[in-house]
């Protein structure tokens, strides 16, 4: 009496196939699970036993062995409950599992099939690996049905799954989830129209959005840095289908996906507190690493307020993802790679007390303190930020007289047009241009080159800084609708280099 059922376990945004074999044979009455099962999987024993009994099925009064193959792969999580129970039930009924089908789901003691995280990721992986049908918890069926070309069977409870397999009472497959298209009038929580004045920072925000550049806002408390940062998602183009699926996969892994609206077109905005741990920001945890804030911000915005307050090693760890758009984390359970392609918006006070440069309040820091503070910020991370602008505090009484700016909608249109120019020309955003392609795609005329080189020499710019200014100039030209970079574009780009000091 042997039956075998397919399932999978997640390894980051990938999965590994797991064959669940159940064998009932004569011997003393025991129920063993073998095949490198973690504690959470071993606990399934009790759930599986009760679920089978409470579903009106027979539980073997024999020696029962469930093997999870391959044995070298460590298995975690409760998603294997359903395939184990199905394998046991089929073994007792001497029936074969349906071909090219995989099962995923946690069981309650009464046989109900409950939510598991990462169904979207699993469904995508299973489809790619030749499976035609997935049995998933009914609550996760909409999520799984986002994936084209795989039949999704929503499972409410164990009894109905068995009835479906035996053909007694087939379950209606879940219809494909139609992505609700982004509506033109999508309302964002924060609109630039609420930002008074701050023309410099607004412009920097637009440049950042257009070219995919990272941005640093420096200014006293209450200057509106957070507000500005929160406006960024609203001027970014809506997610493409493939991007939305990537975002949804990370959320699915974390069990964060809304079942009513599994596909969201707005870009993520994540603002972790400065006390965040390395594991929280980058990803981590025991066994296999979970995605961190940087992966939750994938295709969106990661906002780090009070940059200087973050632990130095946490910030250091941002360097690799900033550079390559993904992060590889190795834990005891193995190594996983998560996407982490985000726009970084960092905010900082100009000095420890926060009031340097404020028109109304005097700064109480000594030059040495300001120096030390700035040094803490500087270095490799700051070197990877293309745009740095000062944000000034507008006193409350003057706020009303500050000119109102544009709303987000026209800015977003310019951003979309500038992005289209970049994608048509080079297939990526300017921020991702490698130096060789930059030279090719963003040729400088003599005057522009001279200006850039003069600045670089005056301020002892690193090669990296040099290329960053160049890329920003490319974006400035793209916002201008101009193919050729002019001196004014270079000069604007250099205007965002707040931290270069004359040697």
């Amino acid at each position, binding site marked *: 009496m042997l039956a075998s059922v397919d399932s999978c376990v997640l390894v980051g945004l990938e999965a590994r196939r797991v064959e669940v074999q159940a064998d009932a044979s004569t011997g003393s009455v025991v129920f063993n699970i073998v095949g490198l099962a973690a504690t959470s999987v071993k606990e399934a024993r009790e759930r599986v036993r009760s679920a089978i009994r409470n579903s009106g099925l027979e539980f073997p009064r024999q020696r029962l062995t469930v093997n999870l193959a391959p044995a070298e792969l460590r298995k975690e999580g409760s998603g294997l409950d359903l395939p184990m129970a199905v394998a046991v039930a089929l073994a007792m009924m001497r029936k074969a599992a349906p071909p090219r089908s995989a099962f995923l789901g946690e069981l309650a003691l009464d046989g109900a099939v409950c939510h598991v995280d990462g169904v979207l990721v699993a469904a995508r992986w299973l489809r790619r690996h030749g499976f035609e049908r997935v049995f998933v918890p009914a609550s996760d069926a909409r999520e799984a049905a986002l994936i084209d070309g795989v039949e999704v069977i929503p499972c409410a409870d164990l009894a109905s799954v068995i009835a479906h397999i035996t053909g007694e009472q087939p379950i209606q497959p879940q219809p494909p989830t139609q992505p609700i298209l982004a509506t033109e009038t999508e309302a964002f929580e924060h609109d630039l129209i609420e930002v008074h*004045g*701050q*023309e*410099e920072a*607004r*412009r920097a925000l637009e440049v950042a959005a257009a070219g995919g550049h990272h941005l640093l806002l*420096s200014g006293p408390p209450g200057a509106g840095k957070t507000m500005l940062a929160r406006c960024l998602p609203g001027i970014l183009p809506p997610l493409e289908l493939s991007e939305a699926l990537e975002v949804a996969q990370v959320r699915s892994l974390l069990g964060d996906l809304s079942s009513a609206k599994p596909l969201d077109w707005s870009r993520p905005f994540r603002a972790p507190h400065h006390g965040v741990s390395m594991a929280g920001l980058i990803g981590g945890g025991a066994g296999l690493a979970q995605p961190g804030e940087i992966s939750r911000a994938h295709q969106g915005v990661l906002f780090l307020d009070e940059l200087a307050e973050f632990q130095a090693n946490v910030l250091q760890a941002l360097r690799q993802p900033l550079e390559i758009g993904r992060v590889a984390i190795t834990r005891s359970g193995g190594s996983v790679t998560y996407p982490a392609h985000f726009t970084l918006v960092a905010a900082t006070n*100009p*000095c420890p007390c926060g009031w*340097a*440069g*404020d*028109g*109304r*309040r*005097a*700064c*109480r820091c*000594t*030059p*040495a303190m300001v120096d030390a503070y700035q040094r803490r910020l500087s270095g490799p991370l700051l070197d990877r930020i293309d745009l740095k602008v*000062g944000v*000034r505090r507008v006193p409350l009484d003057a706020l009303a007289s500050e*000119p109102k700016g544009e709303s987000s909608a026209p800015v977003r249109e310019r951003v979309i047009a500038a992005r289209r120019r970049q994608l048509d020309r080079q297939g990526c955003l300017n921020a991702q241009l490698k130096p060789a392609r930059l030279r090719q795609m963003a040729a400088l005329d003599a005057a522009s080159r001279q*200006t850039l080189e*003069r*600045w670089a020499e*005056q301020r002892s710019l690193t090669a990296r800084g040099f290329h960053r200014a160049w890329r920003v100039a490319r974006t*400035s030209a793209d916002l201008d609708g101009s193919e050729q970079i002019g001196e*004014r*574009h*270079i*000069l*604007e780009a*250099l*205007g*965002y280099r*707040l931290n270069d000091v*004359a040697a």
Partner: protein
Amino acid sequence: MSLPDLSDLHARGRWPPPEGPRVAIVGSRRPSPYGEAVAEQLGTDLARAGVIVVSGLALGIDAAAHRGALNGGGITVAVMGTGVDVVYPAAHSRLAEEILAAGGALVSQFPDGTIPRRQNFPARNWTMASISDAVVVVEAGQGSGALITAEAALHLHKEVMAVPGSVFSPLSVGTHGLLRDGAGLVQNARDILAVIGLGGEVLDDPLLPPERLRFALRPERDGIVAHLSDVLALSAADIARKLQLPVAEVLGRLTALELDGAVRRQEAGYVRALRRGKERV
């Protein structure tokens, strides 16, 4: 604050200096271009009039005063809060050498090898006041150490004078407070010379602005410079608003001026540079 025994000062260079009136010029370590220019000009003019310029070798006003005195070919004395062999800030070691080379001195009440300690600087300020005939404060915000020097001078019955600043600037709070309380008004070096009873002749008219930018600016950029202040920083947004120009363009033009050394960027925005930038065009 007990007065240190002046005969007990540690010194490098010529100490005591030759006979002559001594004036301390002190102020903020982070002055505006205006304050820095005033301190430097006063230093030069006083030096030319034969006054020994005393200051504290700190960043900002102190350094400008020493440098001005050196430019005027005068003798200047740096009263240090560290041992005389410990130049603080280290960036001023060259300035210290120049002071010595010009016949000046570095003095300190602290033994050699004393490293900078916060609590030593107020005592240093008292020493500075006690070896000077007058104390001139240029730009001091609330709680500035320069105000301690002024207070010490008051206790020691020395002249206290102050240079007025912009009423918009936080750096004027301390100096204007002194002026309100009866400190002498300094508009030029002659004001100081009159107070210390020296009929010396000042060669440069101190009312003339210090070394102005001598290079020709490109005409279209002049428009922006005219809108900049040498005390109050203006942001690119402020200027763009005034000129009704896009902020991106103004930012670019300001950067060009910065490259030419005609403007300086500070935390709050741009100020007009009063001294020639490092690079000549």
